[in-house]
Structures are given as C-alpha cells and as structure tokens.
C-alpha cells in the first residue's frame, strides 16, 4: 500500500530536512511523514510542520541561485542541490516603472516566474514533490494538471530518471500539450474538465493501478505545496529583506496564494524580516471565479462552478484551498477580484508593451486585476506593490493579439510607400 512511508535508502541526511510531521490544517491532528494528504478525522488538508534550526540570512545568501538557497525552510534533504534536479527559482523581480507610470502607481514590481526552466512557477512545487517521490520510493511521477504542472512534471521526471504519466483535460493549448509530452513521459487527455481529471486521479491513487505512483498534487501534495513558499522568500530577499506592502496572486486551486502567505509568516516568526503589514489580493478570471464570487457574497465556503474562460491554467471550478484564500484576503485587508477574457487579452498586451514581459493568460489575469483594483480604489497606489507573472505567453499564443505590422516587397520604395519610416 502506498499509504505508509518506506525508507527506501539509508541516507546520511534527513530525507525531509527540517520537516517534523504532517498536521491537519483544520483540526490540528498530527501524522507521521508519509505519502498522505488528507486528515483521517476530518478530511482537512495535511500540511508540513517543521522544527526549524540553522536558518539565517547569511546561510541563505551563501546558497545557490535557485530555490535550494532556502533548503533549510523546505521539506528536502540538506544536500538537495547536489542531486539531479531542475534547480528552479531565483527568477527576476522586475522593476515595472513604465507600467507603474501608466497605471499611476508609485512603486511596482513584477515577479517573473516565466523565467523558470519549464516557464511557469510549477517548477518550484514539482521540485519538492520529486524529492518526496524519491524518498518514498515511487517509480512513476504523475499529476492532474491544467497544463503547466504537466510540463514541469515531465521535465523534472526526465532529469531525475523517473517515469512520468500526466493527466490533462482534453482541449488544452497546444503549447502546453507539446511541453508536457516532449520530455518523453506519457500524456493522457481526459474527456472532461480539470475537476474531472482531479477526481479521476484521486480515485486512481486508491486503486492498485496507481500503486507506487507519486501524484505530485494528490498523495505528494503536502510537500508539493511547500514549493510555493519560495516565491515569498525570493520576493523578500529581492526587496532587500523587506515584505512587500501589497501583492497580487492568481488563483486556480488557491494553493500558491496560501503558501506565499505561509512563507511570509515564517520569515516573520523566525525574525528574518520585520513584521510590517502586507495585503494579499487574489485574482481570477470571471469565467472561473468561484473564490471571487464567495468573496463578493461574504461567504466562507466556496460553491464550485463549471469554468468557461481562456485562462485555462486557472480553470479550476472546485478550488480546494478556496476557503483559506478567503481567510488570507480577509486577515490581510485584501480581497479577491476577477477580470473578463477581453481584459485578460488586453492586459497581456499592456504588460508586454510596457515591460517587455510576455505573460500567459494567468499573468493577464493578475495584471488585469491590478488595473481593476486600482480603478475601484481597493489597491493603494502609494504602497509598494508586487504582481506575479506565473507563466509564459509562448504557451498560450492564441490569447495574444499581435502580428506583423505590414507585409511588403523587399524594396525601399515599398517600405516608404507603406508609411513605415518614422
């Protein structure tokens, strides 16, 4: 059975580093570290709990230029950087002065995670899951994915020498399908939505057919999710060991947003950063905005929806971490907002035109929500703001409205006649 932890190798370092247990986010029940993900008492999500030691800014600064500089804050062995892996992270925090000027903001940064090895933030979370899969002795790496995760799993499995088989909803963007398949693993399209794929994978895990499989976002999810904390650590380090005052984060399942908040709180608790207020805003596409709808209605439960949006990477109609997103937004004085498909397309152009960053639809969603929050007076233009770009526009080319300016004969006359000289 895949439910008990197996010590497959005798290692000199602790395979899960500072991680001490898994604990239920709902009722606090603690469990031994293993490939388990839901509380046996209340079905609540299990989270990694730690016993931190040896965490210091100096030690972090002397680490490699990747997420592994934060290994002492993650459920990974101390020698993690020396094992074959994608070494994601340490992506640019771009000063977005031209976009800030256009929108009337005092200070804006874009955390550009399209610079990761497979061009989305998913390389961060998969890096954690690969280490857990190794430690548990799983031979196949798998996931349910809206596209980006599939690519990250394919690549990371290839480099780690694991087999992979990923599941996606049929009809995803071609760029995402090719990126998932090129690394040589299996890609299985399911005739249904992401939520159908997710249910299927959850059932597969409980079946002998899925035994010895590590599903990065199901039975390895507690470890996987911790990877998103590295976005918080990097932003803080890149701002000079300060918390941002406002941050806008896209929401699919809500995991990334919740873990960025966890990352900020850990740095505060460890005394590595001054405890200054920060406000978290969540961003969804109107065509899949169950968390934003719950926010608007003042609910603390999230009613699932059937998604219909071009932002397929965010098209999760039943976001499991939705209630926690609402908690973070409420606690930090933020909110959860949404933008239409037209605004997404428009915002992709805006970010590209002003900052030279070509975002996929998810980046269009966060940039669009930034603009909407400013217009509605919900975001303070005088506070230092960070907006996340979590994926690369090359994967969602259909959403971009751009093309050649003119087609002309190869002659100076034709160039002049077309009115192109200026």
């Amino acid at each position, binding site marked *: *059975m895949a*439910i008990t932890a197996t010590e497959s190798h005798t290692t000199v370092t602790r395979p899960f580093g500072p991680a001490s247990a898994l604990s239920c986010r*709902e009722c606090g029940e603690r469990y031994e570290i293993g490939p*388990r*993900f*839901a*509380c*046996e*008492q*209340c*079905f*609540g*999500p299990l989270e990694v709990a730690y016993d931190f030691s040896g965490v210091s800014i100096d030690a972090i600064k002397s680490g490699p230029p990747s997420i592994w500089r934060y290994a002492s804050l993650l459920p990974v062995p101390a020698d993690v950087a020396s094992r074959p892996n994608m070494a994601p992270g340490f992506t640019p925090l771009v000063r977005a002065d031209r976009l800030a000027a256009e929108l009337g903001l005092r200070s804006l940064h874009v955390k550009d995670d399209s610079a990761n090895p497979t061009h989305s933030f998913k390389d961060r*979370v998969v890096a954690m899951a690969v280490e857990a899969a190794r430690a548990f002795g799983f031979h196949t790496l798998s*996931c*349910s*994915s*809206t596209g980006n*995760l599939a690519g990250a799993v394919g690549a990371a499995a290839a480099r780690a020498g694991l087999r992979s088989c990923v599941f996606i909803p049929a009809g995803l963007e071609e760029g995402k399908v090719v990126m998932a398949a090129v690394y040589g693993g299996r890609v299985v399209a399911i005739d*249904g939505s*992401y*939520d*159908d794929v*997710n*249910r299927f994978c*959850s*059932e597969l*895990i*409980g*079946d002998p057919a899925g035994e010895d499989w590590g599903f*990065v*976002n*199901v039975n390895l*999810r507690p470890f*996987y*999710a911790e990877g998103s904390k590295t976005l918080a650590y990097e932003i803080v380090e890149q701002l000079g060991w300060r918390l941002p005052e406002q941050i806008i984060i896209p929401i*699919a*399942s*809500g*995991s990334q947003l*919740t873990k960025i908040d966890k990352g900020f709180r850990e740095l505060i608790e460890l005394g590595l950063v001054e405890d200054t207020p920060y406000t978290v805003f969540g961003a969804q596409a109107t065509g899949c905005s169950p968390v934003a709808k719950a926010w608007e209605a003042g609910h603390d*439960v999230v*009613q*699932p929806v*059937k998604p219909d949006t071009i932002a397929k990477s965010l098209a*999760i109609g*039943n*976001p*499991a*971490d939705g*209630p926690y997103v609402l908690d973070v937004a409420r606690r930090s004085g933020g909110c959860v907002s949404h933008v239409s498909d037209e605004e997404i397309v428009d915002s992709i152009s805006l970010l590209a035109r002003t900052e030279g960053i070509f975002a996929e639809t998810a980046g269009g969603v966060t940039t669009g929500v930034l603009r909407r929050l400013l217009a509605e007076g919900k975001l303070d233009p005088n506070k230092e703001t960070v907006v996340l770009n979590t994926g690369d526009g090359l994967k969602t080319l259909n959403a971009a409205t751009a093309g050649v300016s003119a087609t002309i004969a190869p002659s100076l006359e034709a160039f002049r006649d077309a009115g192109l000289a200026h």
Partner: protein
Amino acid sequence: MSGVNVRVPTILRTYTSGESEVTASGATLREVLTDLETNYPGISARILDDSGKIRRFVNVYVGDEDVRFASGVETATPAGSRVSVVPAVAGG
C-alpha cells in the same frame, strides 16, 4: 431497492475492512449514507458534519457529477449508480 456502488477513499477503508468498493442501497445520497452506516458504523460521521452536511473538504460524486451541482445529500442515487467519495486536493 437495488444496489448502489460506493467507492471508498483510502482513509475510510479502516471502516470497510480494507474494501475499496462496497454496495449500499438508498434512493438518495442521504439514504445511501444511512445504509452504509448500519454496515460500517462510524463511516458517515467522517463524511458528514454534525449538522448533517457534507464536510468542507470532502467531494462526493454520483456518477461523474459533484453532488454540489445537484441536490447535495438529497441527490438521487438511481439503482446501479456509482457514488464516489474523494478528499479535496489543491494544486494543478
């Protein structure tokens, strides 16, 4: 009343002696859960909260449909249908 197939998640199999699939009867999900409880005491309190609603982090499907798109615990469970209980998972 004829049977409904119930797929049991790993964390509830202690109640079903390790069985991953069991049969139950009932015309609605609530009746199916009540019937399950008589054969596997304790199981329904894991799925439903104290007020009888489906717990926040449990997804229940009749066929391929999340019952929250239908009538929740009052969703009809026609003979031969398959009920699946799945813990919610985030990330994708």
